[in-house]
């Protein structure tokens, strides 16, 4: 079966972002960018499905500026077969991303679409579910286990109260959570090989999708800073402070 994976280029998770002095947005100039960590988990899951003989082809799609090719190449080095860049420099909201992905799903007809549960920049946690609604496909979000069995897939989901398993008929959509797998690193020979794998570039217009925006970023401010506290000498002093100063015990 064919697996489609959506990967997003975002700020590297180790970088603490700064807000621009004019409060118009965050400052991404000269900031290290990388693949969204949940998307790495999505690529890894697809590669494991291929290694198990369940998946036959892995197509990776990213929507963004030309440089997002880097994240597609990384996915190809990790084991994906072919890449699609939907190139645009415009700022995208989830509904547009989902509409673009829907167009790819219609063209590629994958049996499984794997996305991250959440972009670590917008912290939206929306796209996979929106894609599910637009395509009419079932979803298994926040997956910690994916078991394909014939024309069905069981997805175990990390939920607030523990774990819950849903059974979906294929084609289906899965969004990854942290415990689904531990992504591998790309080897040098695979990075070289990835350079020769096909990467097609299309535009939103090619897919017949108009980029629409319904959300305006009014301002972006830094979070309230906590004032530095004190170091206590021992447990006795800690308990004393919590009782008499903080009054929380």
């Amino acid at each position: 079966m064919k697996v489609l994976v959506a990967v997003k280029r975002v700020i590297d998770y180790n970088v603490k972002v700064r807000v621009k002095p004019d409060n118009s947005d965050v400052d991404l100039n000269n900031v290290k960018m990388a693949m969204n960590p949940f998307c790495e988990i999505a690529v890894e899951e697809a590669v494991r499905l291929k290694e198990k003989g369940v998946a036959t082809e892995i197509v990776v799609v990213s929507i963004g500026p030309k440089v997002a090719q880097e994240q597609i190449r990384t996915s190809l080095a990790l084991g994906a077969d072919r890449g699609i860049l939907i190139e645009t420099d415009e700022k995208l909201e989830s509904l547009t991303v989902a509409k673009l992905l829907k167009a790819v799903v219609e063209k590629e007809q994958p049996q499984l679409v794997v996305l991250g549960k959440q972009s670590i920049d917008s912290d939206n946690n929306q796209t996979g579910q929106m894609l599910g609604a637009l395509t009419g496909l079932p979803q298994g979000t926040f997956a910690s286990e994916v078991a394909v069995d014939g024309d069905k897939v069981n997805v175990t989901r990390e939920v607030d109260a523990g774990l819950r398993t849903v059974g979906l008929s294929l084609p289906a959509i899965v969004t990854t959570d942290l415990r689904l797998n531990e992504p591998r690193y790309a080897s040098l020979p695979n990075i070289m090989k990835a350079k020769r794998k096909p990467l097609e570039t299309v535009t939103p217009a090619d897919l017949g999708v108009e980029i629409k925006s319904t959300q305006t970023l009014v301002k972006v401010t830094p979070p309230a800073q906590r004032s530095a506290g004190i170091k206590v000498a021992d447990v006795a002093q800690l308990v004393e402070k919590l009782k008499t100063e903080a009054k929380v015990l």
Partner: protein
Amino acid sequence: MSILLIAEHDNATLNVATLNVVTAAKEIGGDIDILVAGEGCGAVAEAAAKIEGINKVIVADNAAYTYQIAEPMGDLVAELGADYSHILSAATTTGKDFMPRTAALLDVNMISDISAVESADTFVRPIYAGNAIATVQSSDAIKVITVRGTGFDPAAGEGGSATVEATDIVKASAISAFVGEELAASDRPDLAAAEIVISGGRGMGNGDNFEILYKVADKLGAAVGASRAAVDAGFVPNDMQVGQTGKIVAPSLYIAVGISGAIQHLAGMKDSKVIVAINKDEEAPIFQVADYGLVADLFDAVPELESMI
């Protein structure tokens, strides 16, 4: 303006997270209707009707909604919600699962995890693991919103007398079904609602060592949380993870034990009123947000703490 608010519940009891959403809805303004979708959820509907300031409770009691799986829920809420100006739910794993589906079915965008209401169309939400706070204005005809519980005080759960009416809309799903679940059984308070939270990280070493935290928790009536590293290592289950991609907590007292203080962890707890850190590394970043820091070996400090409270 009119708001459709989706109740969070397990068919037996109304989850208190719903009360925080009611407060957000009141700040937006307008009539508030609550949808209780489930099976055999009459007691939940009654509880919802008692919440102060609710216009009407709509009950969708059907086997299609027993587990509130995303496909039927997304469809139901999109159909009922089409006549409202706002659709709100808690930013729980249930709300996060079906609300984006509802938004896409209504051909609108969604605003996730709001922490404040500026006006009926403008909302505040943390982005980049809480390292930036965005104010977002929406021009969508229907605003689909999930609400971060820590941003709003709970509304009064008593004093209201809303009318309760049933809906017979049934959106059964042929493509998805509930298979099973493994729920964490705990007598301790819910992480999201607890006044005191004590969390353990990789420094705990193994799952058995969490016992020393449970002892403190039981003396204080606290909930127990964990860092991602502690969950990944299998010390404790996933429902205990606090952070950017886990649960967001803001108790009166948060005690971080053997946790370094990565930005992703801070994102889930730095709005706590008082933060205590116990860590043997005095350079650990957690000390930068701690009101009281104790540089010590946790295996000495935690039992000592237990004996002194």
